[in-house]
C-alpha cells in the first residue's frame, strides 16, 4: 500500500493513533483506517488553506504555528486551537532551552543540570507567547 503515492498520512501511524483511543477489544476495519487517513489529510489541507489565505492577505510569505492556531479558531475548531496554543508555547520554550544549552556547551559544560530541571517543569504557563522569537523561525 503506497499511501496514495505519499499524498496522505501513513496508514500505520493513523491506525496507531486510533488504537490509542479505542478500548483494547475494539476491532478496526482496514477501510475505516483508510477513511480516517483521508480525513486527516483533508484536515491538514483545509486548515492550511485557511492559514495560507490569511498570510496572503497580510502579505506575509511564511506560515507559522500561530497562523495555524488562528486558522483553527477561524474554522470553529476552538478546542483544538486552545490545546495547540499551549503545545506551541511548550515547544518554543523547549527550543529556547535547547539553543541556550548548545550555546553554553560551546563555552562550558557546567550547565547540564539546567536542562534536566527544565524537563521536570511540566507546568507550562497558559499565557501563550504570540510573537515568535527569530530563533523559532527555522525555515524548512
Amino acid at each position: 500500500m503506497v499511501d496514495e503515492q505519499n499524498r496522505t498520512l501513513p496508514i500505520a501511524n493513523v491506525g496507531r493513533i486510533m488504537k490509542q483511543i479505542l478500548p483494547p477489544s475494539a476491532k478496526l476495519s482496514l477501510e475505516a483506517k483508510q477513511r480516517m487517513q483521508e480525513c486527516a489529510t483533508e484536515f491538514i489541507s483545509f486548515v492550511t488553506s485557511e492559514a495560507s489565505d490569511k498570510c496572503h492577505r497580510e502579505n506575509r510569505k511564511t506560515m507559522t504555528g500561530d497562523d495555524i492556531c488562528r486558522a483553527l479558531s477561524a474554522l470553529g475548531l476552538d478546542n483544538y486551537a486552545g490545546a495547540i496554543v499551549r503545545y506551541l508555547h511548550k515547544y518554543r520554550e523547549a527550543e529556547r532551552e535547547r539553543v541556550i544549552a548548545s550555546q553554553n556547551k560551546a563555552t562550558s559544560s557546567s550547565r547540564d543540570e539546567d536542562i534536566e530541571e527544565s524537563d521536570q517543569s511540566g507546568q507550562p504557563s497558559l499565557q501563550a507567547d504570540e510573537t515568535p522569537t527569530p530563533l523559532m523561525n527555522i525555515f524548512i
Partner: protein
Amino acid sequence: MRQAGTYSGMVISGKTGPHLLPLARIKKIMKKSGEEVKMISGESPIVFSKACELFIKELTQRSWMVTIKGKTRTLSKEDVASAVLATDLFDFLLNLVSQSAPAPLHPKPPN
C-alpha cells in the same frame, strides 16, 4: 546533537518517537493544499502533528460511539461517515465520506 531529554519530555506520548506523524509528509500535504503556500516555518508541521493527533482521536471516538450503538465491535468506514455527518464541525469532510455514508446526500464526487 539532539537533546533528547528536553524535547521528548514534552511531546513523547510514551510509546513512539517524538512525533506520531512524519513531519516531512505533513509538510508535503501542506504544500499541496494550495499554490499560495510557499514558505512554512519549522514549527508548522510539528503543530499539525499534534493537531492531527487530536483530530484523529476525536473522530475515532465519535465513530466508535456509532459502532457500539450497532452492537458490533468493529469500527467500519460507515461508522466514520456517520460520525462526520453528525458533527457540524466536520462539514468539510462531507464530500469525502459521502461515498460510504449510509444515506448519501449528494452524488458521488469524481476521484
